[in-house]
């Protein structure tokens, strides 16, 4: 009986420990991001890696989501004779919710995992110790360029995703289901507010921070060789995805 309570307690202790560690590393990343030297080259390299190289994944994910969303809503809305609102529904859902969350999760799988594996390997092969021994702060050299790249590039990916999702929805509704193109276009933008775009962009920046920092922190605290690197990679993806989904709810509530 005691062991059950002990285990529950341990789970909570670990949770609090990890949360504390995450915020501590966030603070250290912030502090080191304003200290010279600024590794502009590294920042750009990471931006290309996070942003440019993720375009194909974002393209496919958001476009098909827009398409399937239009398909399903059209069928549903048709039953209540509200086909005219399909465009609005697709645009609102993409901008506020689907594009940021899907892009966040996809980039977590692509980038969060690779950052955890990369930094984790550096840890187990003593390259992190070597950085320190060469009088270089690992948080500044490794974390800062990656986290900045996440915060800067995710909004661009999400805006791209918005456009592709709306475009995909248009294609399905107009070309496949025979909706009127002009009416669909008008309806798409009729109820949109600039706030909806901002909501998505703010979410994107936040998710960019979460997925890169989680990847870096998990990699940085890797122990136990190749197996440990594998564990860190999995943990990075799982915890970043969970944090993104939790944060998404609270951000949506705040930014209504």
């Amino acid at each position, binding site marked *: 009986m005691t062991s059950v309570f002990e285990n529950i307690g341990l789970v909570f202790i670990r949770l609090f420990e990890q949360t504390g560690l995450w915020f501590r590393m966030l603070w250290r990343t912030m502090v080191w991001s304003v200290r010279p*030297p600024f590794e502009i080259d590294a920042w750009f390299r990471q931006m290309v890696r996070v942003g440019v190289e993720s375009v194909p994944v974002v393209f496919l994910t958001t476009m098909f989501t827009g398409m399937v969303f239009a398909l399903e809503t059209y069928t549903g809305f048709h039953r209540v004779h509200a086909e005219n609102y399909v465009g609005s529904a697709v645009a609102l859902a993409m901008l506020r919710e689907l594009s940021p969350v899907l892009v966040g999760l996809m980039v977590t799988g692509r980038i969060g995992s690779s950052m955890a594996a990369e930094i984790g390997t550096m840890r187990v092969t003593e390259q992190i*110790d070597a950085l320190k*021994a*060469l*009088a270089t702060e690992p948080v500044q050299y490794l974390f800062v360029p990656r986290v900045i790249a996440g915060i800067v590039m995710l909004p661009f990916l999400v805006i791209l995703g918005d456009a592709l999702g709306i475009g995909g929805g248009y294609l399905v509704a107009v070309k496949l289901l025979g909706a009127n193109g002009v009416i669909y276009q008008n309806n798409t933008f009729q109820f949109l507010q600039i706030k909806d775009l901002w909501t998505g962009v703010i979410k994107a920046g936040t998710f960019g921070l979460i997925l890169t920092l989680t990847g870096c922190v998990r990699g940085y605290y890797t122990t136990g060789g190749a197996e440990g690197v594998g564990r860190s990679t999995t943990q990075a993806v799982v915890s970043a995805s969970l944090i993104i989904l939790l944060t998404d709810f609270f951000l949506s509530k705040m930014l209504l």
Partner: protein
Amino acid sequence: MNPNDGEVIISVQHVDKFLGGKPVLRDLSIDVRQGESLVIVGGSGQGKSVTLKHMIGLMQPDEGHVYVLGEDMCCLEARELNRFRQHFGMAFQEGALFDSMNVFENIAFPLRRHTEMTEEQIRTRVRECLEQVHLHGVETKRPSELSGGMRRRVGFARAFSLRPEILLFDEPTTGLDPVISDVIADLILEMDSTLNSTTVSITHDMKVAFKIADRVAMLYNGHIVEQGTPYEFQQSSNPIVRQFIEGRAEGPLTE
């Protein structure tokens, strides 16, 4: 040189360290003097690497103090600690080269970050460092293309590229064949005399230890059980030291 000459530049005082709840260092005290070559020997898991990491501030003691050049390493802020670490060069066990960079970039890394040298000066300095470790034409190779011995030598070159006063060698010959081990030992001796720095090495290879040391210290159970010149060390009557030198399976070490 006489090991008792020279001022103390690293002083480890009564250090206790626990890792994962287990004691690794217990009341460890040892001094390193200016210009000497100290070799710390001991079996696997006796805390040799941990001792070395305390000296450069990669680990902090749970109890006790580590003074380097008179400064207590525990109480330095991150930026001060980084400035302090420029006094050190550390060569890691497997080299710990950055595998995202080639050999040239690895050695140039500290030069680019901590000096105002021009690209031309950096190129010259990197070539000098590689010559010092007898390597030629490997600048554009990736660490993964090098053999174990070469990786270590590049690691040495990177460690002393800033001309540090103190060089630390973590198991410089472990996993190398006896010939390459001897080459590496010669190299350390050579660096010791030409760079005129203080070196601390850890190893369990007694042949290498006797070759490069001015003073040998044996670490057992987290503290120093014996130290002296290589000659004194070889004459020691301490059963722990005798068993280790002679490499016997029976004795106090294995009880």
